[in-house]
């Protein structure tokens, strides 16, 4: 399992305006959701993990290597990141070429890259679209191309920036099962999300960012129990959690299934 240590990390695009201040986090094997308001510093933070940005102060260590001393290219084989907007990521004019680009770049052979690319496209449900131009696809399909491009690189760490944007129910479920699959294969999954119901369903750990600092960090159930604290960060718990709280339950329920089986388990029948 990949190891990421963040120590007293501070960063600002301009010196006078720090975007992140004094962040210390270590990532264990748990799938981790990063939540927070637009502008809280979430995307900046993951760009620092990937070495696209370098800390103003403090350190980011990837498997013991300081990102200050590593090139983006040398980190690319270890950390994959799916951008929020697929248009920022996609530049080839054929889907297959796009998805093979990363694998080839980190030194896979042509055959190996193709194999990885085809498997990744199957996983995101884009089989048969290999020869299409990504810009002839819909936004939700393009997002899937962007995800496949990163999966094909088979990195130890996979970062998703807002993976569920523009996805319908089926797309959300596909992405959810990809995240679970990565976790089962021992990958470290980190995702920035605004969809709290999705966080509740698929992530073991949740970190709340607010104004460039870590406000809360813990198991997802534990974090979503702290409603007051979440509201201070302009967030709210998942819909099911809110409903159960309003009904006076003391436990924190994360999904509809969770709650339905609890009620049925207590002998409720219609």
């Amino acid at each position, binding site marked *: 399992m990949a190891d990421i240590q963040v120590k007293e990390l501070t960063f600002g695009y301009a010196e006078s305006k720090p975007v992140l201040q004094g962040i210390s986090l270590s990532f264990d094997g748990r799938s981790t959701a990063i939540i927070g308001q637009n502008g809280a510093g979430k995307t900046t933070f993951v760009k620092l993990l990937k070495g696209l940005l370098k800390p103003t102060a403090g350190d980011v260590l990837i498997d013991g290597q300081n990102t200050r001393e590593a090139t983006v290219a040398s980190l690319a084989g270890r950390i994959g990141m799916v951008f929020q907007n697929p248009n920022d990521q996609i530049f080839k004019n054929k889907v297959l070429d796009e998805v093979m680009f990363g694998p080839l770049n980190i030194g896979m052979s042509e055959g190996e890259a193709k194999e990885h690319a085809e498997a990744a496209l199957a996983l995101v449900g884009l089989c048969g679209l290999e020869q299409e131009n990504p810009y002839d696809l819909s936004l939700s399909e393009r997002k899937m191309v962007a995800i496949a491009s990163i999966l094909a690189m088979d990195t130890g760490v996979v970062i998703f920036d807002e993976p569920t944007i523009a996805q*319908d*129910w089926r797309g959300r479920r596909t992405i959810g099962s990809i995240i679970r699959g990565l976790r089962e294969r021992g990958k470290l999954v980190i995702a920035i999300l605004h969809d709290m119901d999705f966080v509740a369903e698929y992530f073991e750990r949740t970190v709340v960012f607010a104004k460039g600092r870590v406000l809360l960090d813990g198991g997802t159930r534990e974090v979503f129990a702290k409603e007051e604290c979440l509201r201070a960060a302009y967030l709210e718990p998942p819909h099911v959690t809110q409903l159960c709280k309003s009904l006076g339950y003391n436990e924190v329920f994360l999904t509809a299934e969770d709650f339905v089986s609890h009620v049925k388990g207590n002998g409720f029948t219609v």
Partner: protein
Amino acid sequence: MAHIAVQHLKYRYPLTDELALRDISFTVGEGEFIGIIGQNGAGKSTLCQALCGIIPSFYKGAYGGKVLIDGEEAAKTPVAELCRKVGIVFQNPFSQVTGSKLTVYEEIAFGLENLGLPREEMVRRIDHALELLDIQALREQNPFDLSGGQMQRMAIAGIIAMEPQVIILDEPTSQLDPQGSEEVFRAVQKLCLQGITILMVEHKMEKIAAYSDRVMLMDKGEIVDFDTPQKIFSLDCLEACGVQPPAFTQICRGLGLRNGDTGLYPVTLEEAHKALDQIKGGAAHG
């Protein structure tokens, strides 16, 4: 007269074989808030583009039937005229931004300059739009320095400033944080209460249930049903259409809790709370 009347609308994109819209007919009254749902590829965005005339004026292809906005036929009305009546907010704000303006303020002014409005009128409308979307603080910023959420609110402000009678929003909150999307829904609801007709495509079913007067469920280029949120989210074919009902409805469906009078499932937190509170008694508290 219906504010929007769509009669037997059919449309096929150029170079494709299948109809994207097959024989769609419906009417919408002035000031209604309509939610449009369905899986990706159902025809939602295509319908939006037909309502504001981008289809067939920009996207060619095969077009049949009629779209009437306030009695005027969209396909026969020049875009320059139709845009005073119908505004559209795209899913991706990058598609909407002109790219030629250096501040948020000027960006919002762009549409108004094209309408040739007097300066004082422009200032009044821009200030109003900035306030409604709560982006006054961003007025002097470069549009390309904004976050996705801020940019989307700017795009909506640009349409609101045009003061159209109908506003179509195609997944306007997909880039926004929870607070930002709640703000957009509230702002849109405010416009609706002022008599503006709203049609919004959205995947956030809890929001659709809370804000829509009626919900249109689309699949494979057709309208499956067009009714109250309670009726739509109680349909058995929902999952087959690739739509998951609101979390509140999922719970009530899971427990078989229907509204005693209507036989329909609750769709909002308040409705679900009421239904669940009645059964709580001995079984529930943890």
